[in-house]
């Protein structure tokens, strides 16, 4: 009886998990719409959801261009974070000396608020590079920290086995440590995706106030000065969507990489 129920219940659960957030969104939008309508709030104070959607369509060319700029920076930052984070983790893993010398500064870079670093970077670097540097600074640490943890979480018996087989340092790294660290690395990358977007946005805002830039965050700042509140909302919405897409894309990537062997990605029949 119960076994027969289970698939149906699972499907109902899935539908609910998809439908309920959508319903909540719809209700929230409705309340928003009514508040604006009933109180007759002017659009430069709070635009209704309809107007925001409308702006999204009418301003699409300019918003799309800006989105591309921000996304490019985000992905470049993420890629550099992956290379830099994994590279540093490997370096730290191979040499205690380097790890002890540099790890504290990786932490310092992480705990210093990026908003405070951005203006300084804008002075020394061309604007595009400064934005990229900000995205990289916030995104590389989770990759570094997670990969370091992964490289140090190798099964002791497997390590002994490699030793017994006379494996070289490089063989231990590429055949044992890096595969062991892969799930950790991908988890770090998932966190880094969102952070890279945040870094890019923060730097764009900082750059925007300095009078240059064309990313989505710059559009928000610019629209703010012009009291173009509907466009601010539209750009904000687009940024959120970009964040969500990045997160799901990285989750999917991680799942595809691990689906054949890692517990986190394996589907079990109960």
């Amino acid at each position, binding site marked *: 009886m119960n076994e027969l129920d289970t698939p149906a219940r699972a499907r109902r659960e899935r539908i609910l998990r998809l439908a309920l957030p959508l319903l909540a969104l719809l209700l929230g939008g409705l309340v928003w719409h009514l508040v604006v309508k009933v109180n007759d709030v002017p659009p430069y104070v709070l635009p209704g959801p309809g107007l925001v959607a409308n702006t999204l369509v009418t301003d699409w060319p300019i918003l799309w261009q800006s989105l591309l700029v921000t996304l490019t920076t985000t992905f470049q930052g993420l890629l550099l974070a992956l290379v830099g984070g994994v590279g540093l983790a490997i370096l730290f893993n191979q040499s205690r000396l380097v790890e002890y010398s540099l790890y504290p500064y990786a932490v310092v870079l992480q705990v210093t608020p990026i908003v405070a670093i951005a203006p300084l970077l804008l002075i020394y670097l061309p604007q595009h590079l400064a934005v990229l540097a900000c995205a990289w600074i916030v995104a590389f640490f989770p990759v570094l920290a997670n990969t370091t943890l992964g490289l140090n979480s190798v099964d002791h018996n497997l390590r002994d086995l490699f030793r017994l087989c006379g494996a070289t340092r490089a063989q231990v790294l590429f055949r044992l440590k890096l595969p062991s660290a*892969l799930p950790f690395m991908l988890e770090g990358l998932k966190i880094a995706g969102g952070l890279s977007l945040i870094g890019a946005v923060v730097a764009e805002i900082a750059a925007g106030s300095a009078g240059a830039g064309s990313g989505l965050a710059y559009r928000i700042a610019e629209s703010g000065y012009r009291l173009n509140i509907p466009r601010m909302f539209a750009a904000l919405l687009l940024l959120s969507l970009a964040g969500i897409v990045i997160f799901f894309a990285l989750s999917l990537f991680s799942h595809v990489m691990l689906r054949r062997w890692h517990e986190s990605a394996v589907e079990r029949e109960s």
Partner: protein
Amino acid sequence: MTTTAGAPAVVTLRGVEKVFADGTQAIARLDLDVRAGEFVTLLGPSGCGKSTALRLMAALSDATRGTVSWPGGGAAHGEIGFVFQEPTLMPWTTVAGNVALPLKLKGAPTAEITARVEKVLEQVGLAGFAAAYPRQLSGGMKMRVSIARALVTTPRLLLMDEPFAALDEITRFKLNNDLMALASGLGMTVVFVTHSVFESVFLSQRIVVMTPRPGRVFAELAIEAPYPRGDAFRTSPEYAAYCRRASEALSAAMETRP
């Protein structure tokens, strides 16, 4: 019984002591010769230093005092197979990938690797599972993969550290039977660590009973039943008598004070 008394020693321990960094003395004055073609069991209570002795023989650990030597060469050349308590497989690669590892690390040619992996998988009864991932296998099958990986290089010395301790009794008997068939067929030198009297009597030609920590040799017992042994041996009065003797030796060993 095939006598191995005159055969050359594969590994020799002389006055070996092992003290860990925290001051624990795991092994005290251990003398042991393992001869070519011999199946020796180290039998003793948990924590008596059996596993430590095995790690010393594999050169995974250094003796604090005394010497461990491999008269025919061995440890330095990676000619030792090791089976751990857990299957210790790499989850990210297939059964074939796991078994091929020791050969790949040595840089053996691909054709040779393929042929040897196929052969050894057949020997342990896993033909047809080459492409499976470890998580798809049962505990007993994982252990077979682990044994195949240890055998793939045809090592001079096979060291097994309570490999079947975590398995259920039926699987354990089955694996004991198969290991027996393999060992007698290949004429390998095996050192097998266990705390099971029944397992040690069934498998080995010689049982070395060890005292509780710090471990040393308390008694030796020769099991002179011919190879290969099967279920008939396991149910024979002879087997029961050996088990009683081994149990008595183990009980006496447990009562010794360092």
